[in-house]
Every structure is written in C-alpha cells, then in structure tokens.
C-alpha cells in the first residue's frame, strides 16, 4: 500500500511521490491563503459581504422561528437572536455585542435569510417624508 512497499517500486514511487509532494505543497498554499482571509472574520466564515447594504439603523427583530431555535445556534448568532426580542438597530446590535459592524451585518444577513429575524428597512426615502419629520419635531419639543 505504501508507495515504498510496492515491489519494483522505483518507477511507481517516481510516479506517486512527486504527485504527493506537489499536492502537499499546494495544500500548504491554500491553507495559508485561506487563513489570512478568514482570520478577521472567523465568525462569519470568511465572508465580508452579502449584507453590506443593510442600513445601519435598520430595525432587527427575532421571529417566532428564531425564538424556537435560538438555543441551537452558535454563539454570535444566538446572541443576536436573544438581543432582538424588541426591534433593535443593526448598529446597536454591533455595539452591544462588541462586534465589528461588518461582522454584525453578515450575521444579521444570514439570520434574515434563514428567517430567524426580520429586518425592517424603511422603504420610503425618509428625508422626503414631511409627516415623519414633523412628528420627530413635535416629539422632541415635548422632551424636557
């Protein structure tokens, strides 16, 4: 079985060994490259995008399904789900869980895709929304 154990193996080993050798080299390179890519974003399995367009103030809230499976999720995913029983902004999730904003976005993107949280992005351009701005003004005026 071992290449060296094959009878009359000079030819065989010359066939096999360089192949093995080459493959080992290749693996080393791949591992090294993968490691440098993944390290900063270990939590997100190396992905740095996919949900980068979620507005930082978008509101995230756990769904019924998310509540049900919360305990089976891995750390950061579970933390996000547990934090969002009431609507919480993407940026607030990042801050409260000490996650880099980019990492939080990827996790929230995954959870949204899996239906474990719902992410609410205001679909109207709020800067043109006279009524909303007036309500903010009125609300602030009443603050003391």
């Amino acid at each position: 079985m071992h290449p060296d154990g094959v009878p009359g193996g000079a030819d065989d080993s010359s066939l096999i060994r360089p192949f093995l050798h080459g493959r080992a080299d290749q693996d080393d390179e791949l591992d090294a490259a993968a490691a440098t890519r993944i390290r900063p974003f270990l939590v997100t399995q190396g992905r740095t995008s996919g949900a980068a367009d979620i507005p930082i103030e978008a509101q995230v809230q756990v769904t019924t399904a998310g509540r049900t499976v919360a305990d089976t999720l891995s750390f950061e995913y579970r933390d996000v789900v547990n934090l969002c029983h009431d609507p919480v902004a993407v940026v607030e999730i990042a801050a409260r869980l000490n996650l880099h904003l980019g990492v939080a976005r990827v996790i929230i993107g995954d959870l949204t895709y899996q239906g474990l949280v719902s992410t609410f992005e205001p679909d109207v351009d709020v800067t043109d929304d006279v009524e909303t701005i007036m309500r903010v003004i009125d609300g602030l005026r009443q603050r003391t």
Partner: protein
Amino acid sequence: MAYDSAPERPAGTATRQRQPVPVKILVAGGFGVGKTTTVTTASEIAPLTTEAEMTSVAAGVDNNELVPTKTTTTVAMDFGRITIDESIKLYIFGTPGQDRFGFMWSDLAKGALGAIVLVDDRRLDDCFAAVDYFEKLGLPFVVGINRFDGMANHDVETIRWALAIDPVVPVVEFDARSFHSVRDAILVLLEEALVRARTRQAEKKRQDADASPAQADGAA
C-alpha cells in the same frame, strides 16, 4: 435543519407593521470639539460605540494630488438614541474622522435627515472637511458653536464669514452639556430638513401635474 423547513417569511412580514421607523441625524466636526458630549447629552441611553470600516480620503493641506488617495480604516463610531414615540426612533451618530481627513460616510449619510457640524472657534479649519462634505452631498446641516466654556473668540457673523457657508445655513450657539441646548440645535436642523422635504414634495407634485396631461394625450 430546523430553520430550513420553518415557515418564517410570514412571521417576518407579520411583525413589520409594528416595527418602528428609524431616522437619524449626524454630529460632525473636528477632534475634541464635543461630538461625543453632544451625542451623550441628547441620548436617552448611555451612548454606544461600534467599530466600522470607513473609507477616508486624504485631504490634508500637503496633498496636491488631483486624485485623492483612498484608504480604508477602522474607526470607532459613537451613537445614541431618542425614542420619539412607539413608531419613531431617532438615532444620533457622532461621525468618526480626524482633522486631516476627508471622509466618505456613505453608510452614515444615506437616509440621514441632516447634520450638525460642530465648530471649535479656536480651530475653525477642523470643520471644513465636514462642511464641504455635506454641501457636496446636499444634506441639510447647521453649524453648531459649542460655547461650553462661555468663551467666544469669534462672534457668529465672523464664523459664518470664515466658513463661507450659504447664508441660509443656520449657525447656532449651544452648550453640548445641556439637553435643552442640544435639543434646540437638533430642532433647528430638523426645521431645515422639513423645509427641504416640503420643497421636494412640491416639486414632485408639480412634475406629476406636468406629467399627467402628457399621459392623457398618450392614452387618447
């Protein structure tokens, strides 16, 4: 496994109606001018900080390049929140960035109602980058002079002249440690945002009115 089969989409849409609308404003300015204090004073929660990637554009006085060099840096971003009512949350973001950097805060600026540019009247040039940015973006902004020490090295008109801002841009003096003072500065900004929103709404109505006879012609 469990989550592949569960019918989440309906659950997600069911909660949508109850989701509060988030709105945001920015607090910009140079280093040490009172951004964090302003955010802290305004916020109903202890202010939070998060790390984020920001694309900075070198904009120092020693940079003569026509094409600015972009670099991505990780910066800390402070923010706070005010719950206006059960359906609106106002977020206040302190913009990161240092004196010698321009910035591209697309994440922050997108959808923002406006910005307060804080000015330290001993170091006026620190806020130029912010003023430039918001002018280019067409985002409503007010200039806030933080008079926390009661000192005034320059009066409002001098500062307005030095910044060379549009006469319609409000310049307010305030104390970043006082809630009422910060709130009033935010209100001045929101009034600006309201005027812009009304103008755009009126333009849109006019355009729609212009467009509808044409549509009628097309249909006939």
